[in-house]
């Protein structure tokens, strides 16, 4: 056992007394207390339920604090488990969040932990000893003295501190369920079921032996909630068993078994059989398939009934939801064939084929309890999936993204874009615009409409049929409903708009002495834009953050689903993003992070940390460690020390770990001769407990092949994405979306800019800069009344000329006579030599001759050298260092034709 190797003293754990109860299904015995004795010492410590305990963790000086809720063990007595309610120590709260406390935390203060990302089930053998915890009133001072007592005042849910409402708050875990209850280990209500199973998966992996009981329980729990309306508990448990094993075998089987149990009750005897001998299940495949076909007919009849006479909607709806979700299992589980699922799904609409409105109505009409249900239905399913995946194939293939999440992000994005475009078209007033910004999750109505449209324009990457999408939408619609309401309640406390920003920089780096450097603030306020052109200019500035990024929907979705799946699964991975400058790489990733942060804020996905480093913003590649560490934990260290600390952090298991998303911008600058920085960055995500997602950005597509040695490139993996330069249509759309409804440009002018930039570089920054310059030119020329006040072609042309035309020819035209003569002499000498290079001495002879031809006084060598130097300073000529004097070699930096053209023109 892992912990034993670390301990200096060997502890012996024994149950005290007889089991209080026995769970027949899970084969677990529940106990009232646990005795811990240290080997060689007579004293034993007794742990009872309801007692506060210390649990071994990463830091030996500050073990985790928790409260025992239940104690149980398996039949053999080897596995001893405890379900606990965690408390967070001050040191466990991120530094950046401690500010929310508004005061200095007491060293012995702990917080009632309400976060969801941690496993509430621990190995009993990690328990160290009981500890005394006192709950204090919010305003009461911390008593001094006893160093062993810990104090609780507030609760901590990984985002905010809340006052513990009553003395009872921490003591309200659910009472131990009756022995026959099939839901023995439902997580306590304080931790929403959504995320708990997700994090459970990786944590379990640390255990030495696979715990079948828990797997079973998880499956049971999941199905139980999903079918809460079912009264026969026993049947449900048994059915869950079958479902669980079925998913392991084939998706189609899983579907069929589920459908079977949902519609027609099979005798309990059969299930008992399945339960006791799971390995025989493969033999009943034929049965199931045949029954499936029968059922299709059966359920069609049922549907007809339901449609005619508005029956209780719960059952049919559940029924339709179930298969859809399992299909998503199937899609996600790469190795299994997709076909069967698709076949079944294609059938589904026939039996269920609700006109979308009917299904929607039914969802809306549900009671509060019903509304809660779909959410729990969906999420644990994903959790279980994660768990299974992590056991079957620990390295999740990238493509195996949960379908629903992809769907969700796609909907979010598409709806937002659509909304924006609507705004553009309909020219709605500005209020609705700002409204849309605040409301991140589209309202249900919008979502529905957008999802309906989604069906019409099939985005091609959907390998499933449209009918499938309908099902998803239904489940999504139902599930987004709950977070929505939750968010609304929260938004009263703080604006959701701000939270992502706050989270983006978790440990804001601090300078020592608590001083924070900043540019002093203005003594006079900044003026606001006054007219349309100024307004347009403000909007076109690269820095003004657009509310969405048009033309990067596909990339956004891919990155979103990649990161989201990793966060949900609690695994790690790398992604390489390439593209020429100004194609929105960093902006897209930031947008993804903003959306994910928002999703985490409304509890759709587990919380995570986001850290960003930029190769250009550090002086040395090894500073990357220092910056990552500082942003993660707020501590300062030297590069070597920071590397060691990060190594430790990412290789140790911790029950309460959040996923870290690391964005490495300008990756190519982290190159070192040994490449150890890059090696580490890509190696950490592959560690078992790292939970690290690394997104890397660089300019060249073949960077991994070009500069990385094999072991680094191999660890980076093949998850690549490249951002293509924008096409002129995309650039036009970008400007339009930025301008929103400010009418400042003529349509032709916009098209000219975007075509020109697309032809040159496809750099969106360039495009915006040109537009900005054009507004300025327009403003200056606004004096003449002929202009319409809009930026027209002429203004844009002028701006383009200013930015793209080379000044060489003008410079030659503006040069003095001797300088022009010298250039002519250079060309003459080049022609004579047949080379593109000559010494000053040679050119000077030609120069003298030309002077005589032109009837000018011949210049001295010094003067000639001065002329030559002036041309060299402008880089019309390329020169060797001037101390070489007459021996320096001269080359033209412009083409000869350009020079001759410029000289001839005047």
């Amino acid at each position, binding site marked *: 056992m892992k912990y034993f190797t670390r301990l200096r003293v060997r502890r012996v754990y024994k149950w005290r007394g007889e089991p209080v109860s026995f769970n027949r299904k899970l084969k677990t015995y529940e106990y009232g207390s646990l005795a811990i004795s240290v080997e060689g010492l007579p004293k034993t410590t007794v742990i009872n339920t309801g007692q506060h305990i210390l649990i071994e963790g990463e830091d030996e000086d500050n073990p985790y604090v928790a409260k025992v809720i239940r104690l149980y063990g398996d039949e053999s007595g080897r596995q001893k488990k405890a379900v606990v309610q965690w408390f967070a120590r001050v040191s466990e709260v991120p530094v950046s969040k401690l500010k929310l406390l508004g005061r200095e935390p007491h060293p012995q203060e702990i917080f009632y932990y309400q976060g969801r990302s941690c496993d509430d089930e621990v190995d009993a053998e990690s328990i160290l000893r009981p500890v005394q915890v006192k709950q204090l009133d919010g305003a009461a001072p911390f008593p001094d003295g006893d160093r062993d007592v810990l104090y609780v005042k507030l609760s901590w849910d990984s985002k905010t501190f809340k006052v513990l409402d009553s003395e009872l708050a921490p003591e309200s875990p659910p009472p131990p369920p009756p022995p026959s209850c099939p839901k023995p280990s439902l997580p306590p209500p304080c931790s929403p079921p959504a995320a708990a199973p997700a994090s459970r998966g990786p944590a379990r992996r640390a255990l030495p032996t696979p715990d079948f009981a828990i797997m079973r329980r998880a499956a049971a729990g999941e199905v139980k909630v999903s079918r809460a309306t079912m009264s026969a508990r026993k049947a449900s448990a048994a059915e869950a068993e079958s479902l669980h094993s079925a998913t392991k075998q084939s998706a189609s089987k899983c579907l069929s078994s589920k459908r079977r149990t949902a519609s027609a009750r099979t005798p309990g005897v059969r299930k008992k059989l399945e339960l006791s001998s799971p390995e025989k299940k493969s033999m009943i495949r034929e049965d199931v398939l045949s029954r499936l076909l029968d059922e299709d007919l059966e359920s069609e009849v049922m549907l007809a009934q339901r449609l005619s006479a508005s029956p209780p909607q719960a059952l049919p709806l559940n029924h339709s939801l179930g298969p859809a979700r399992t299909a998503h299992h199937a899609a996600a589980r790469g190795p299994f064939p997709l076909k069967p699922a698709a076949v079944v799904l294609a059938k589904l609409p026939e039996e269920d084929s609700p006109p979308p409105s009917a299904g929607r109505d039914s969802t809306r009409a549900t009671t509060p309890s019903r509304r809660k249900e779909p959410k729990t239905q969906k999420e644990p399913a994903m959790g279980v999936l994660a768990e299974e995946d992590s056991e079957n194939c620990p390295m999740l293939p990238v493509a195996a993204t949960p379908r629903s999440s992809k769907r969700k992000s796609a909907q979010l994005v598409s709806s937002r874009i659509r909304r924006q475009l609507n705004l553009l078209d309909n020219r709605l007033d500005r209020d609705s615009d700002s409204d849309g910004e605040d409301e991140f999750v589209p309202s249900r109505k919008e979502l529905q409409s957008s999802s309906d449209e989604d069906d019409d324009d099939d985005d091609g990457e959907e390998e499933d049929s449209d009918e499938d999408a309908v099902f998803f939408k239904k489940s999504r619609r139902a599930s987004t409903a709950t977070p929505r309401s939750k968010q609304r309640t929260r938004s009263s406390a703080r604006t959701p708009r701000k939270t992502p920003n706050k989270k983006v920089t978790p440990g804001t*780096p601090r*300078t020592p*002495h608590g*001083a*924070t*450097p*900043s*540019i002093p*603030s*203005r*003594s*006079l306020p*900044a*003026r606001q834009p006054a007219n349309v052109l100024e307004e347009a200019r*403000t909007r076109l500035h*690269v*820095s003004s*953050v657009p509310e969405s990024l048009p033309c990067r929907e596909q990339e956004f979705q891919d990155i979103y689903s990649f990161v989201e799946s990793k966060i949900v699964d609690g695994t790690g991975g790398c992604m390489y993003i390439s593209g*020429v*400058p100004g194609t929105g790489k960093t902006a897209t990733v930031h947008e993804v992070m903003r959306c994910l942060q928002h999703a985490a804020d409304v509890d759709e996905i587990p919380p995570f940390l986001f850290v960003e480093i930029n190769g*250009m*913003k*550090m*002086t*040395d590649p090894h*500073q990357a460690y220092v910056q990552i560490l500082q942003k993660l934990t707020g501590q300062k260290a030297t590069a070597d020390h920071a590397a060691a600390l990060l190594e430790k952090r990412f290789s140790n298991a911790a029950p309460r770990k959040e996923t870290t998303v690391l964005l490495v911008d300008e990756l190519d*600058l982290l190159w070192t001769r040994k490449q150890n920085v890059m090696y580490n960055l890509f190696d950490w995500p592959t560690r078992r407990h790292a939970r690290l997602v690394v997104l890397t950005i660089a*300019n060249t597509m073949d960077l991994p092949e070009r500069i990385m040695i094999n072991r680094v490139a191999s660890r980076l993996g093949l998850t690549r994405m490249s951002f293509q330069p924008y096409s002129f249509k995309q650039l036009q759309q970008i400007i339009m979306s930025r301008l929103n409804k400010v009418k400042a440009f003529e349509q032709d002018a916009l098209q000219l800019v975007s075509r020109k930039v697309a032809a040159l570089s496809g*750099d969106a920054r*360039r495009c915006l*800069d*040109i537009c*900005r310059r054009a507004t*300025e030119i327009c403003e*200056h020329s606004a004096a003449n009344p002929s202009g319409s006040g809009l930026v027209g072609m002429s203004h844009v042309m002028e701006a383009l000329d200013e*930015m793209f035309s*080379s*000044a*060489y020819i*003008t*410079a030659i*035209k*503006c040069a*003095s*006579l*001797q300088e022009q003569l010298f250039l002519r002499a250079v060309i003459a000498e080049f022609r004579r030599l047949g080379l593109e290079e000559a010494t000053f*001495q040679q050119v000077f002879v030609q120069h003298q001759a030309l002077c005589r031809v032109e009837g000018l006084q011949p*210049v*001295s*060598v*010094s*003067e000639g050298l*001065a*002329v030559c130097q*002036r041309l060299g*300073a*402008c880089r019309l000529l390329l020169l060797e260092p001037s101390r*070489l004097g*007459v021996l320096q070699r001269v080359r033209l*930096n412009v083409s000869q034709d350009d020079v001759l053209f410029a000289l001839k023109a005047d």
Partner: protein
Amino acid sequence: MSKRKIQEAHLPIGECITQVQEILRERLCHQQLPDKPEGLEAQHKHLLELLKRTAVHGESNSVLIVGPRGAGKTMLLKCVLRDLLEEKEAQKNLLQVHLNGLLQTDDRIALKEITRQLHLENVVGDKVFGSFAENLAFLLEALKKGDRSSSRPVLLVLDEFDLFAHHKNQTLLYNLLDVSQSAQAPIAVVGITCRLDVLELLEKRVKSRFSHRQIHLLSNPTFPQYLAQVRTQLSLPADFPDAQFAEDWNASVKTLVEDRSAVDVLQRHFNSSKDFRSMHVLLMLCLSRVSVAKPAVKPADLLEASRLCFSDAKANILHGLSVLELCLIIAMKHLNDVYEGEPFNLQMVHNEFKKFLQRKSNSMYNFEQPVIMKAFEHLQQLELIWLLDSSAARIQREYQLMRLMLDHSQIMEALQKYPQCPTDIKQWAMSVFS
């Protein structure tokens, strides 16, 4: 009586001359900004608008001022800043940081200088910044903290911008331009450079972040404009204390720019270089010849000043050489003629010299080898001859290959003016055959 009255209105002549020197020197040494930049009105307006938007609206910008040396880039910026600071709104807000690529030769020094000029070092007490990395993180964070509407705008002037592009990774430029393209503290980055190809120096990421705004100062004045400029530069202002003297002075300037020989001199200068700085040098030389005895600039002064300006530096050095050294130079010239510019060594030069002595020398006699060697080394120190390959320093002195750094015309010119040059040496130099 009447004489005394006139005396009262007039300052003594010495006083007047002092005043003239003071006013004109200030003008010619660029210590006084012109009221309006001549010929650069459009650029002035563009830059002023741009910086005003940063100062007043908090909009971040980046711009390059490009123009040949002496075109008035810094003058333009100074004028703009002067006009900008007349506005109260801008004056109270704007923070200025001036960097020069010749002073801040790497990013570490530049960062320290920025921190110092922003007075940020006071925030952390007397703590001396440890590492470059800390310094960078510190400054970036300071800039990140700010936002468009609340922080004071910062104006960063990077003189000799092209030199900053040679810093390692262009870290400073990347970060400054990145700040100017993101929603952080508003900054305006103004780069001043004379290189037309400066954008090609920027790394692609840095280039993408630069706004590509370039203000080119390429003015093309005609000769009459140039003459008018000379006149205004030399004219005394109307508020000169002695009106009579000023009138006289201005009249003399007018006759000067109409004088035939003076115009020729100015035309020659104009042909050589149109920039104001070289004109100022010329006028400065004239001005320094103005005295109580000669209270006006005469065409002769201009001629003399022009002669000083155009005199050849290398030829002037030759005037100070000994006859032996001159002989060696002539020998080298002949070697160059014979071998078509191939390098030579001391032995070859000495042989050439000995041949001359044997044939027709009556004023010179042979010198010992060490004396020749000494003369040779002296020429090398004056950089009149150039060691071909510095890696050949281990080769014996006599055989190190050298090149002559003088043009034939320079040698001949020097010989013409060399005081008491022996005739046979002159003849030897002019003879085609050695």
